[in-house]
């Protein structure tokens, strides 16, 4: 599980379906969820989680894509296994892990220090903790 801390900046609701916009180090990210805890309002700081295998990596990306969250990041480490590779990505001071196939990591010729885009689907993000401070 990779987690990031962000602050809720907007909430759209249709019945029990919610779209939430969050401020993550000055950048807007979006998540979709069902029931939302009452304590989560605009201004609430939360911890978001996403499974590393749900974070895609794009390099030299052009065109449009339906992923709501595209975060410019830097590769800090690559651990290539036989089938899967764990790639550590850094955005500002936050490190998140992406698990992709080793075939993809080789075909993309990913290197440490390289700038890439981390892509997170809004439906794969979830709030795991409300941080009250």
């Amino acid at each position, binding site marked *: *599980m990779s987690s990031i801390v962000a602050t809720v900046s907007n909430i759209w609701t*249709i*019945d*029990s*379906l919610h779209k939430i916009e969050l401020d993550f180090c000055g950048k807007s990210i979006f998540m979709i969820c*069902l029931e939302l805890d009452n304590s989560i309002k605009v201004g609430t700081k939360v911890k978001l*989680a996403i*499974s590393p*295998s749900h974070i895609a990596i794009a390099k030299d990306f052009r065109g449009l894509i339906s992923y709501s969250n595209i975060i410019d990041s830097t590769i800090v480490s690559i651990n290539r296994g036989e089938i899967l590779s764990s790639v550590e990505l850094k955005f500002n001071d936050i490190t998140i892990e992406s698990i992709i196939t080793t075939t993809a990591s080789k075909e993309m010729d990913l290197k440490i220090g390289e700038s890439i885009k981390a892509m997170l689907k809004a439906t794969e993000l979830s709030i*795991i903790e409300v941080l009250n401070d």
Partner: protein
Amino acid sequence: MSKIRIKTTKTLYGSSGEMLLNIDLEINKGEFIALSGPSGSGKTTLLRILAGLEKSQGEIIIGDKIWQRDKIFLPPQKRKIGFVFQDYALFPNMSIEQNLLFVNRDKELAKQLLKVTELYELRKQLPNRLSGGQKQRVSLCRAMMNRPKLLLMDEPLSALDTAMRTKLQNEILTLHKKFQTTTIMVSHDPSEIYHLSSRVILLQNGKIVKDGTPKDVLLKTTGSQKFSFEGEILDIIEVDVIFIAVISIGQQLVEVVINRKEARELKIGQKVNISTKAFSPNIRSL
């Protein structure tokens, strides 16, 4: 001293009518078997038949000893069994130590068992001074006192809280490693089954429907799905362009997003299997 051979049939009369208990089973010495299955599937009856508390047709042979065949039917006290019940069944007027020595006057064995289960200091106490977990440990020790060839346990830990359950699981495991007693334990708790047993037998309507390792029997997966539960659809709610199925799984409700086609095909009240791949769930310490 080797295999246990059980081939037995008995007609049972339960709430859902007549049912034939039909068991054909071979157990290796030292195996720890978890006996699972829905209530009324015949688990407790099978234990009682093995203990000699109920008659049935067929045969029960333990190594070279015949417990039951044709006209032979050994009474419970002639079978070398230990029985642990859910409700402890201790003698209230005897101390812990006396409860053990009543079965067999082997003081050394009693001491050994009470030490393993951390009850030695309490040996002079009466059972009513003990907690549920301690009482069940006494009844486990007592069941081990005649060095049973077969230890039978009928949901021994189901009345205990989670912490005590884990502690007793560890003690059962320690005793099993030390004495290598062939054991059959009725249990519904997957973590208990996984933790303790080497083989799981699933009974349904009096018959063995599954027999394998805990992982084979308990991991309810099809294809590459690794996270799988059975539940019942309580409601299907349309929201925007998606649908939300409200499903009860065990003691809790979950919501699963489904599409229009699934919403049309699934019916409220229907039993369903909910699964996801092992890659998806998030895990967090409590």
